[in-house]
């Protein structure tokens, strides 16, 4: 230690022509500060290396093997096979079904031409299964995937994220604008906004699961029957086309208040004088919103948006609790591959895919946010 300090003094002496005495003192202080800084930062980084970086290295390596827990089979290196199985897609069109003589088959009841079944047109080796089927300009298109659950989970997670984040941002902005002024009960409203945020996701998921019951013991079926004339038997959580909207409703309730709080904090930073000036210039409320509030709130909104997007893309608790294996997100698919099927290698590959997807968003986030070091 001692020798290092003494050696570093002459170097600076040459570069800087300050009085020697002063310099030695400054340099001692600076060196001590530097050493202290490294000592203070070290525990955090060493720990993170052990619990984050090292396991991630393991995941990366395992993703290129066929490792399975609790299995007699020996683990071998399989290169990118796992990724190929996860991500392979094929697009086919469904033609008309033909009989032995080459004539189109007609459904006897409806009189319509019978279409080929997806299983007939999709490749068998390796086996592709139907992930989505949809009409496209009059043609029936089928997208086949070697792991259709994963491909569907990617699609569902993306859809969930886009819808939930847009709704949360708009609602959050609305609530923030509503509550920004001074009014009686403002403090109470702010306190109430922390309620959904503080409720554990496991709890909120089960609360909503019960409200979405498929009989009239569930709140939404009671409301549906009383006000919208439904039969009160809607299977909100079992009907595939209602599952995502239900999940979005749960997520919106839980996180909109958080968005609103962030935006309120952003609104507080806008100086009152700007509104005065706008009013003097004859701007009405709408003009004030579009030309003062929104432009100045843009950084806050941008940060909140990307922050929420990252969170939604890795959503797990809500889907695992409410839907189990009936509807996957990328995270819950990975979880079931690992825990139920013990597929270490395969689930590691989907972990890496999720990581890469999220990294893209994280980079956007950091660029939006920037790091200020005060130097």
């Amino acid at each position: 230690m001692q020798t290092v300090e003494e050696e570093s003094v002459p170097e600076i002496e040459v570069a800087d022509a300050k009085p020697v005495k002063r310099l030695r003192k400054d340099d001692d202080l600076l060196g001590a500060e530097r050493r202290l800084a490294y000592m203070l930062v070290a525990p955090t980084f060493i720990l993170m290396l052990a619990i984050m970086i090292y396991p991630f290295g393991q995941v990366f390596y395992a993703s290129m093997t066929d490792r399975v827990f609790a299995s007699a089979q020996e683990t071998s290196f399989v290169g990118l096979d796992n990724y190929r199985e996860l991500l392979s897609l094929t697009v086919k069109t469904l033609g008309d079904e033909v009989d032995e003589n080459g004539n189109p088959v007609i459904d006897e009841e409806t009189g319509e031409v019978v279409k080929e079944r997806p299983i007939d047109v999709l490749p068998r080796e390796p086996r592709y299964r139907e992930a989505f089927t949809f009409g496209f300009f009059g043609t029936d298109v089928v997208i086949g995937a070697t792991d259709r659950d994963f491909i569907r989970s990617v699609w569902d997670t993306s859809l969930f994220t886009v819808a939930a984040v847009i709704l949360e941002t708009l609602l959050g902005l609305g609530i923030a604008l509503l509550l920004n002024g001074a009014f009686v009960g403002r403090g109470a409203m702010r306190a109430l906004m922390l309620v959904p945020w503080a409720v554990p996701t496991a709890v909120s998921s089960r609360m909503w699961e019960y409200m979405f019951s498929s009989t009239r013991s569930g709140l939404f079926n009671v409301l549906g029957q009383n006000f919208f004339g439904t039969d009160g038997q809607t299977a909100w959580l079992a009907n595939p086309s209602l599952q995502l909207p239900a999940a979005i409703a749960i997520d919106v309730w839980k996180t909109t208040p958080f968005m609103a709080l962030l935006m309120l904090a952003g609104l507080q930073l806008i100086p009152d004088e700007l509104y005065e000036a706008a009013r003097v210039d004859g701007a009405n409320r709408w003009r004030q919103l579009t030309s003062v509030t929104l432009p100045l709130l843009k950084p806050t909104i941008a940060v909140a948006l990307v922050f929420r997007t990252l969170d939604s893309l890795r959503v797990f608790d809500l889907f695992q609790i409410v839907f189990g294996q009936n509807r996957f997100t990328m995270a819950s698919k990975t979880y079931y591959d690992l825990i139920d099927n013990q597929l270490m290698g395969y689930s590691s590959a989907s972990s890496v895919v999720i990581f890469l997807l999220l990294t893209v968003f994280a980079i956007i986030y950091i660029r939006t946010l920037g790091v200020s070091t005060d130097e």
Partner: protein
Amino acid sequence: MSDTATAAPPKAKAEIRAKPPMTPRKLLRKTGFYAMVVVVAVYLVFPFYWAVNSSLKSEGQLAMTPATFIPRSPTDGSISFFTRNYEDVFADTQFQRAIINSIIVAVTVTLLALAIGSFAAFALGKLRFPGKTVALYTILSMTMFPQIAILTGLYAIIRSVGLTPRPSMILTYLIFSLPFTVWVLTSFFRTLPGDLLQAAQVDGATSFQAFRLILLPLTAPALVTTGLLAFIGAWNEYLFALTFTTINPDDRTIPVAIALFTGQQTMQDPFGQIMAAAVLVTIPLLVLVLIFQRRIIGGLAGAVKG
């Protein structure tokens, strides 16, 4: 009148406005405003109210269709509260164990994150050293690291080492609570005046003394806020807890216990008991959050703004 109003700060504005008799137009606007506030308030609280309502119903009352907004007797429709769900939950040994597990795990994680994190945050917020910017970027990217991405790796390591669930959870929760703590505390440390530190050094204090005797007491409120946020994060964690406790139900934490709650008698999900358990674990959290609400809002905003 309008001159004074424009010059005054927002709070004073409202007071001045309240004085003159309201025109019908103003009254209408005010009513509309409060109506919207009430709608928002109901939206925020209603699901929780519904859980409380359902937790006070017996199986019979829960099966009543349509569901009632207040627990009512199935026979004569009079209001009747059913408290057995709460008694059952309190008597449930798995639930008791889950509470103890959650407290041990969340408290340990919080204390560790604060202890280790405050050192790093002090260095990052107040000291000059090469590599600081890189370190800050690294911490920031760590706060965004998707936990699912290392789940399989951690699971493999824990299986091979034979670590039991509680220490596993404590160690792995630091993955998200430590970078978060460092990030939030760094911005707190940065707001403290630097002269204070130099003054202490001139007086002969070492940097570490300056940290312990001057900066740490000043940042106590920040430590409380950050600690609370870290605690809530650990208390609510589900993915790791679910994964690590698959083998041994005795080590489950509260979120896992509630997600997997099956009750003792019935085969069907006993929603009355689940709701009672949900209400029970949420109330302490709500009390805590409401007491510290100002600080939490500030802390959350700080965490996102950096």
